[in-house]
């Protein structure tokens, strides 16, 4: 661990000012909330901030469910959100995504805001023994392209980076049209979650649209009939404490066996949480019938590019969509 100064401001505005002093590309000051990801990255020397700005006690941790929808304070823990009765009932995909993430110990500690900002599990990003990682050291190259890339993305990749976004929660939230409330040096603003994470392009080290100093204050999710009939299906190499090989968050609004409106997002396959609007459009008006679901799920593969060891994800993600829709469809 590199030496750093821990700042524990009493006001959020002070914290924001500390962080805003560092530019967007300058990682000399970093926020820490639950710390479940940050501490690992500090210990492995992947992140080397000179100043660590604690958000402890500065952020809202309330969970509010009203007729219009859901508001999650950024400091709410994964465990508390997953277990909240109204979320289990009205937004099951969120609870399921959380319960399929990490371990009970991590879920007790990790926060909503930190979950959306967690860094990729790409092993080359996390091992400083490898020189080439554009995300960790801009311009150094990508060891995963041509390397061990079974876990990597097939959608949204570039020749600079093929790292998959690791959050399950973000996949569920993006499917439900969630938005991020951000606080920063210039006040507050709302960012649709679909526009929150950036594609890697040739600057994979810049992962979100947050400006220097901006912090996630809350997450909002609109209520919808589909959210009640939703499901998170996660396919992974072991049954717990493991990241997704492929996952799907699905919410469906049904008219009998006919799909009126569908929300579908994918995890484990995209460089960011990956919504598939063409699949959603094709599902609208379709019956819950296997052959029809398979045809529509095939649209998810548009633009997908395997890099060898992860080629299988392109077929697997279509099957995961079909099964997730089938499971959500029979939910009462």
């Amino acid at each position, binding site marked *: *661990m*590199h030496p750093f100064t821990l700042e524990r401001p009493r006001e959020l505005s002070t914290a924001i000012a500390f962080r805003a002093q560092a530019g967007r590309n300058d990682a000399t000051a970093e926020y820490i909330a639950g710390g479940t990801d940050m501490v690992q990255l500090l*210990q492995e*020397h992947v992140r080397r901030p000179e100043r660590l700005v604690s958000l402890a006690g500065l952020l809202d941790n309330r969970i509010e469910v009203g007729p219009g929808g859901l508001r999650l304070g950024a400091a709410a823990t994964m465990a508390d959100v997953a277990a909240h009765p109204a979320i289990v009932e009205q937004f099951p995909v969120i609870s399921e995504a959380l319960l399929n993430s990490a371990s009970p110990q991590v879920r007790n500690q990790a926060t909503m805001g930190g979950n959306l900002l967690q860094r990729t599990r790409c092993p080359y990003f996390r091992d*400083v*023994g490898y020189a080439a990682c554009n995300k960790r050291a801009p311009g150094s190259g990508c060891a995963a392209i041509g390397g061990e890339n079974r876990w990597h993305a097939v959608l949204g990749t570039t020749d600079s980076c093929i790292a998959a976004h690791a959050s399950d929660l973000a996949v569920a939230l993006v499917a439900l049209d969630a938005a991020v409330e951000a606080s920063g040096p210039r006040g507050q603003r709302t960012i649709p979650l679909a526009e929150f994470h950036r594609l890697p392009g040739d600057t994979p080290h810049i992962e979100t649209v947050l400006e220097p100093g901006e912090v996630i204050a809350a997450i909002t999710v609109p209520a919808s009939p589909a959210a009640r009939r939703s499901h998170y299906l996660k396919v992974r190499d072991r049954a717990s404490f493991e990241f997704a090989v492929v996952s799907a968050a699905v919410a469906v609004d049904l008219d009998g066996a006919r799909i009126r409106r569908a929300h579908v997002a994918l995890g484990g396959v995209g460089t960011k949480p990956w919504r598939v609007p063409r699949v959603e459009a094709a599902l609208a008006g379709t019956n819950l019938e296997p052959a029809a679901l398979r045809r529509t799920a095939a649209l998810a593969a548009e633009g997908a590019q395997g890099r060898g060891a992860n080629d299988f994800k392109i077929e697997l993600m279509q099957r995961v969509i079909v099964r997730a829709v089938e499971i959500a469809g029979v939910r009462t």
Partner: protein
Amino acid sequence: MTTTFIGQPVSRVDGRQKVTGGATYTAEFNQPGQAHGAVVRSAVANGRISSIDTAAAERAPGVLVVLTHVNAPRLAYRPHKGAVDPDVGERLHVLQDDRVSHQGQPIALVIAETLEQATHAATLVRVTYASEVGTTDVTRVGPVPLTQQKSDQGETKPSETQRGDPEAALGAAEVRIDQTYVIPRENHNPIEMHATIAAWDGNRLTLWDKTQWVYNVADEIAAVFGISAENIRVISPFVGGAFGSGLRAWPHVTLAALGARVARRPVKLMLSRREMYYGTGYRPHTVQRVGVGASRNGRLAAIVHDAYQETSTYEEYSESLVNATRFLHSCPNVYTRHRIVRMNVHTPTYMRAPGEASGVFALESAMDELSVALNVDPVELRLRNEPEQDEFKRLPFSSRSTRECYRIAAHGKAVEWLEHVTDVQYGAGTGASSRNSRQQ
């Protein structure tokens, strides 16, 4: 003697301590005045260290000592073979020269007041290498024969055996299975990482060490430092899993003792989870061709078992891959060969059911496939090929209970649970095994 324990639940004597946090593991034996060690490891697989700059690390806060091959004391490394050391080759001599034989090899040791200071300073050591092409892919290197060694009894362990004309018999067999079975490398990862705390008192050394064998650690460290094993006390009351990884004394044990001697302080050296892949052993990658031929009535005509495995460039660790094949089933034509691939990796070691398990997996998988090809029950296939004597040594078995084992496994209590499972292929996955365990 009868006992009332069989069939009854029995609490572990240390169960309460383990579940209440009362059990003390190696890294928890903190000593007064203790300093902490962090290891700098090679970033290349093969070559020489051309320069190593420790100036920045030495200036870092809290750093007491930075040891490299340039300034580390020359250690005795007296000739020594523990019972679990490979017969051929020589253990890694840490920080004794500029040679790098594998990625992750220790090339410097930082001793500092705190763990954080030590790990930070370790990142400040600047190393350049004269890197050479390394071999790290078992399929891209030619296997070579095992070095022939005479055992204590004066016998030479054969690495290649043949009786009859196996290839011809395999080619002529009415039914034939000829497959290659691959087991990738399996790294040791017990829940407790390896750790050592070393404290010198004059020429006497105390080691708190995660080990399965305290006497072996004392004997080896005595040989490394050229002192008497009587002057070394090794303490290891609890082991948080080891599965074979704690049998040998690995390089980090030497490093802890070396750091403590130079720093004149007790030193704790605990490996990180990442470091568990760099020097505490693993089940080697094996590639095994097994051909089995039989008559239509299920009598074996030929077995060909040709196996190779990875080992390091400096030690010849060999699994007992083909030993059981020589006598497990009755067969007139049998060929076995065991070769190794020397690679730029650290030395593999025993892992739960060492050697025989990897080899028998291949043989018995082929037997299962043969039973399917013959449409013969897999247990029945083995019973039809039960030998009357050890056909390799041409000696009677001192004991052999395979018929009884097959009977119990196929029809007795061992498969009662199967009645609760549907769509089970009865007998599929059957396997016989053998483990030659010498009582000492």
